[in-house]
């Protein structure tokens, strides 16, 4: 099977765009990624589109209505917060299968504001605050408390994640916020679901990101290998049975399983990674995934952030983009924005936040329900 390369990628600056439609935002990132590759929509053999909010409304086709109706197949993907990564991976699969040489993956989302999480209301009365809480901050806060129970992780250690990612975002012009938040400010912010304060929750923003995927043969033929980044692994899992998963969604096991498969596929170990963009939808979540992705021994995550090992300049920088916490989390765009971030570092084009000599990077997302997707990307010599 052919190797697959990212030959073009970009994202719009995440923000709030009340006057623009989902297809318009998607179209902008699509054109930026095509420009980055030096290609046009005419060169694309298929489009894989990730969007959650308008999942039944043919967003991929509507993007083509904006940028060029070439008649190519369009696959619209919805997979909770793993939506963008799912679209990217579907493109990877198609090239791997030998069906196409060049495909476009776009992730796009317009978000409302406020708390995410559905209240059950089929018949009877709402159960939020009656039978516990189903808000997203609570789901990930409860998982954080499980980490506390097992490993003694403290509120302060969770808060430090937010301090780090907000600092990272000051170096990313495409992040929603570029504001430093000292530890006292993070810990003293409005408590949402203990231990997650408001500054430990990801930002609901609008955004889009896109990537052009290419087979090895075609990339060489078109002279695109110079800035190409190789996809060393693409893995997706759902939630295998675990004891409490159906009551308390288990994002640990599906991530551990995906990580194991991704390292196997790439023939790499966590020690080979130079940077990681992982799913910090809440500060507590980032702590969980340090162990899940093998960045530290199980239970050492608190010490990892205490030592600043995951800061830019540290042993294994995590979320140097600012992460979902400060760059923002437009659900369908997030997975591809992660690919953009890692690719930018592997190309040595990340400016002030550049991870020095980055050769290999990992992207990770989880979607509640559950889905986990991991990609390992490598610089091409």
């Amino acid at each position, binding site marked *: 099977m052919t190797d697959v390369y990212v030959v073009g990628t970009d994202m719009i600056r995440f923000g709030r765009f009340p006057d623009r439609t989902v297809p318009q935002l998607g179209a902008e990132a699509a054109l930026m990624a095509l420009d980055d590759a030096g290609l046009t929509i005419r060169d694309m053999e298929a489009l894989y589109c990730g969007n959650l909010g308008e999942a039944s409304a043919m967003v991929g086709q509507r993007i083509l209505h904006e940028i060029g109706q070439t008649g190519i197949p369009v696959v619209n993907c919805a997979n909770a917060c793993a939506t963008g990564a799912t679209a990217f991976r579907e493109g990877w699969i198609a090239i791997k299968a030998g069906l196409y040489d060049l495909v476009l993956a776009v992730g796009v989302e317009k978000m409302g504001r406020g708390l995410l999480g559905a209240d059950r209301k089929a018949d009877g009365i709402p159960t939020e*605050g*009656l*039978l516990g809480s*189903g808000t997203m901050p609570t789901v990930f806060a*409860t*998982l954080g408390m499980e980490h506390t*129970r097992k490993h003694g992780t403290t509120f302060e250690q969770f808060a430090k994640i937010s301090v780090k990612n907000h600092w990272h975002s000051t170096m990313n012009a495409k992040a929603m916020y570029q504001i430093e938040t000292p530890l006292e400010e993070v810990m003293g912010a409005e408590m949402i679901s203990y231990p*997650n304060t408001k500054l430990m929750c990801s930002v609901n923003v609008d955004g889009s990101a896109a990537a052009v995927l290419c087979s090895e043969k075609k990339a060489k033929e078109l002279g695109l290998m110079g800035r190409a980044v190789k996809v060393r692994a693409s893995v997706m899992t759902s939630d295998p049975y675990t004891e409490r998963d*159906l009551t308390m969604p288990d994002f640990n096991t599906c991530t551990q399983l995906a990580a194991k498969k991704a390292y196997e596929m790439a023939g790499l170990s966590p020690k080979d990674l130079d940077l990681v963009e992982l799913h910090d939808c809440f500060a507590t979540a980032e702590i969980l995934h340090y162990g899940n992705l093998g960045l530290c021994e199980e239970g050492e995550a608190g010490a990892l952030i205490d030592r600043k090992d995951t800061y830019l300049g540290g042993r294994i920088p995590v979320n140097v983009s600012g992460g979902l916490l400060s760059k923002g989390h437009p659900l369908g765009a997030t997975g591809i924005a992660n690919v953009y971030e890692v690719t930018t570092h592997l190309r040595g084009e990340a400016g002030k936040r550049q991870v020095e000599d980055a050769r290999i990077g990992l992207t990770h997302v989880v979607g509640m329900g559950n889905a986990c997707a991991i990609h390992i990307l490598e610089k091409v010599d």
Partner: protein
Amino acid sequence: MAAPAAELKPVVKFLKRHADGRPYLEGHKCEACGTVFIGERSVCSKCFARDRIRAVELPNRGTLYAYSIIHRSYPGVEVPFVSAVVDVEGGGTLKGNLMGVKPDPKTIEMGMPVEIVYGDAGRTDAEGHHYLAYFFKPAAR
């Protein structure tokens, strides 16, 4: 507020009543592997056995596995409250409100025994019906 207990409608389908009106929570147990699920099903998602699931009455005892203290929820939801995940004795995991504790992490101990109790949900639907809900409260060791 409280309508007579017998007139309260169960807030979830797995909250059942005995013939004498006493409420209980119903689990579904796989006879092949022993796993207890909350909610009806016919196939075991752990061992994949088909048609080996039978309804069981869950005991009103368990232990607190993990929790969060909610200070901001949807508009109209009274805060703070403790959202608790409880492992039921003998199998099965439930989420619910932990009552009778201070909403302060210093006072809530993961692993502590809890009791499942029943009462008026304190909310009514559009037609004014009252509902029966379950709650957790700390149990004596």
